[in-house]
């Protein structure tokens, strides 16, 4: 062996490069200084220093969702690592490929309550796809390669590499060939041919089928296949929050989002269908509502790469374990063209009768801001959201037509996700328009990242729907707790315009409906970090809404 000796830190960085890492997000500290020392001279990895580790984690997540490549984040031991936890859990719930590197105390100090020690592999076990504590520098190259492989294949997810500082300083020779060794990891990509055939027969026989399309279609880049099947056999398509963009929402067959805040027509179609074709969707309780009233008369076909997602919540008649894209390609061949006139007409009538709506009274309604955002961007921006009403309005009133244009924390519902995720998305897609739709509560959970975005001169447009409340919680209090607004009023909000100006960015305030469009145009034209503080109707609600635990066709609002 003639390879030269390298330190653990060098081996790590070489491994990252070999895995195709171009951008890394993170924050330094004692136990990772040796790694940062290597990064100091590393030209091929762009390093984004955030102002909080949570911001770094969500930025890596947003980067991954916008680009499809795994995100990479690094933090120091102890508090650095624990600050990453929410971001890791968030990526886990939404199946986002991410590798998180955490510093750890020296190997011999592990377990001693050493300074800045935290049991990171213990803490992250239930929120990672896999995790490693590397105690031998000779394992490191393989571990890095495996981590990226695991994170980005099968059902993607976060992988943690916990790296004691002494391991990063030890030297070893890099083997000529680094090979992964994972006998226990073999995702299934090809659907079982007979099952696919049987699913096609069910589809061909169905009179009232619905395609229920989720985040798995975005992940496997199968929207084209969904489109071909839907249009060939005239099957209406509804997507989950995570599936937005997988099917063009302006297409007549689109029912847009289903579930708790889905459209009336999507929920009606699902309730009345005789065949539900679930593709890369996991029957989340926000989607199904009361389980025994969900698609009560339908047979269910379920295509998912994760066998444990199938029959977890609802009984599945035709399970197909495999990759959406591969399975749909195969399925398409067996599907017969069908006009399904009656069903398509019924669905069109529902769409006509129960459109999404909000009061047309000239006031500044948040829904209208989102509609204008769609208009001004031509539907061509990457929309990142925070959590709450702002998220639901962004889902309902923008019309998504392409995958990876809607980025939102679905499974964990993390307030504060949006802004750092928008930073990650813009870093990964520098030529795309990126807009963040946020609330005055959420934005303050990671507001410190204004410095990060400004420093990188990212032209993100922050659409702040400022209602002075923790709106989504207030809405529940209004509807189900007799308007007792217990601690949901955001008094003493900062002056957001001055605040962003303090960071060196551009701020605007809009409090009239007539000024919305102009302000948005100005913001996008400015090509610089801009926040627009939209002072919206304070007690606007998200409708329709299925009360928690109810059947999804029992919606409040939107049935006028």
């Amino acid at each position, binding site marked *: 062996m003639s390879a030269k000796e390298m330190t653990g830190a060098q081996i790590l960085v070489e491994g990252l490069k070999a895995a195709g890492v171009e951008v890394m997000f993170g924050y330094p500290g004692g136990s990772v200084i040796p790694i940062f020392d290597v990064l100091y001279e590393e030209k091929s990895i762009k390093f984004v220093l955030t102002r909080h580790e949570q911001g770094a984690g969500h930025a890596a997540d947003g980067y991954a969702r916008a680009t499809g490549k795994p995100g990479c984040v690094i933090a120091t031991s102890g508090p650095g690592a624990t600050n990453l936890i929410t971001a890791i859990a968030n990526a886990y719930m939404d199946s986002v490929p991410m590798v998180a590197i955490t510093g750890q105390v020296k190997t011999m100090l592990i377990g001693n309550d050493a300074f800045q020690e935290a049991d990171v*592999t213990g803490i992250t076990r*239930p929120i990672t796809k896999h995790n490693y*504590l590397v105690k031998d520098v000779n394992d490191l190259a393989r571990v890095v390669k495996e981590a990226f492989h695991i994170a980005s294949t099968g059902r993607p997810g976060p992988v943690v590499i916990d790296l004691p500082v002494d391991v990063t300083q030890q030297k070893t020779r890099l083997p000529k060939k680094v090979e992964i060794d994972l006998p*226990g*990891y073999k995702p299934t990509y090809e659907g079982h041919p007979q099952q696919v055939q049987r699913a096609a027969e069910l589809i061909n026989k169905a009179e009232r089928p619905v395609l229920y399309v989720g985040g798995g279609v975005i992940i496997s880049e199968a929207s084209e296949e969904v489109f071909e099947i839907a249009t060939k056999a005239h099957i209406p398509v509804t997507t989950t929050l995570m599936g937005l963009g997988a099917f063009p929402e302006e297409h007549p067959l689109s029912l847009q989002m289903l579930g708790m805040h889905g459209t009336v027509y999507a929920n009606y179609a699902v309730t009345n269908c005789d065949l539900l074709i679930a593709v890369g969707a996991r029957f989340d309780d926000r989607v199904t509502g009361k389980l025994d009233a969900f698609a009560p008369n339908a047979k269910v076909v379920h295509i998912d790469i994760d*066998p*444990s997602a199938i029959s977890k919540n609802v009984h599945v008649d035709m399970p197909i374990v495999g990759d959406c894209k591969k399975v749909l390609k195969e399925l398409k061949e067996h599907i017969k063209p069908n006009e399904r006139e009656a069903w398509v007409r019924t669905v069109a009538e529902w769409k006509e009768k129960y459109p999404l709506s909000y009061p047309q009274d000239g006031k500044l309604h948040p829904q209208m801001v989102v509609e204008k955002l769609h208009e001004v961007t031509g539907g061509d921006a990457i929309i990142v959201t925070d959590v709450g009403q702002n998220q639901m309005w962004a889902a309902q009133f923008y019309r998504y037509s392409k995958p990876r244009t809607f980025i939102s924390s679905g499974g964990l519902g993390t307030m504060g996700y949006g802004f750092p995720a928008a930073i990650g998305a813009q870093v990964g897609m520098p030529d795309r328009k990126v807009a963040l739709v946020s609330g005055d509560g959420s934005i303050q959970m990671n507001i410190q990242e204004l410095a990060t975005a400004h420093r990188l001169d990212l032209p993100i447009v922050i659409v702040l729907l400022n209602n002075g409340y923790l709106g989504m919680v207030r809405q529940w209090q209004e509807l189900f707790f007799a308007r007792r607004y217990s601690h949901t009023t955001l008094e003493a909000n900062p002056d957001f315009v001055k605040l962003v100006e303090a960071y060196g960015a551009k701020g605007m305030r809009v409090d009239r409906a007539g000024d919305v469009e102009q302000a948005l145009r100005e913001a996008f034209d400015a090509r610089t970090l801009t926040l627009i503080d939209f002072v919206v109707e304070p007690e606007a609600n998200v409708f329709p809404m299925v009360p928690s635990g109810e059947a999804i066709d029992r919606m409040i609002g939107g049935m006028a």
Partner: protein
Amino acid sequence: MRRQVLACRVENHSGVLTHITGLFASRGFNIDSLSVGETDNPRFSRVTIVCRGDERILEQIRKQLGKLIDVIKVINLSEMESVERELMLVRVNVGPSKRAEVMEIAEVFRAKVVDVGAKELMIEISGKRAKVDAFIDLMRPYGIKEMARTGEVALARGPKPSAAGG
């Protein structure tokens, strides 16, 4: 509620058991017993898990175990002909007057007396869980001082090894 015996072939390194027990804890699955031992290949260990739940839970347990990267294979032994055995050591309060009586019962169960004290006997018994349970019931009137059960280990019968081995 049904009982299910699973044999898993897993990587033999630290952290694997935490992944398995943590999975049961965080998803609220019930474990009756869990036993771990080496296989003929030192790289792998064999974990035998006895768990219970309704059909849906048992299926989730198998699928979730299968998802763990360090778990190479999960075999559902409840679905096949298999031999299940458990080992127990028990210390029973027995003075000289009852010694013969207890040793006779042990004999019937093919249990072995492994230690004799002035006021106690230590007995080793192995077999199916039901047999071990029955033996405990018979020992109870004498007074059980202490006992240790291994939890079941199991192997499939038949010509082919159940691949969870080594």
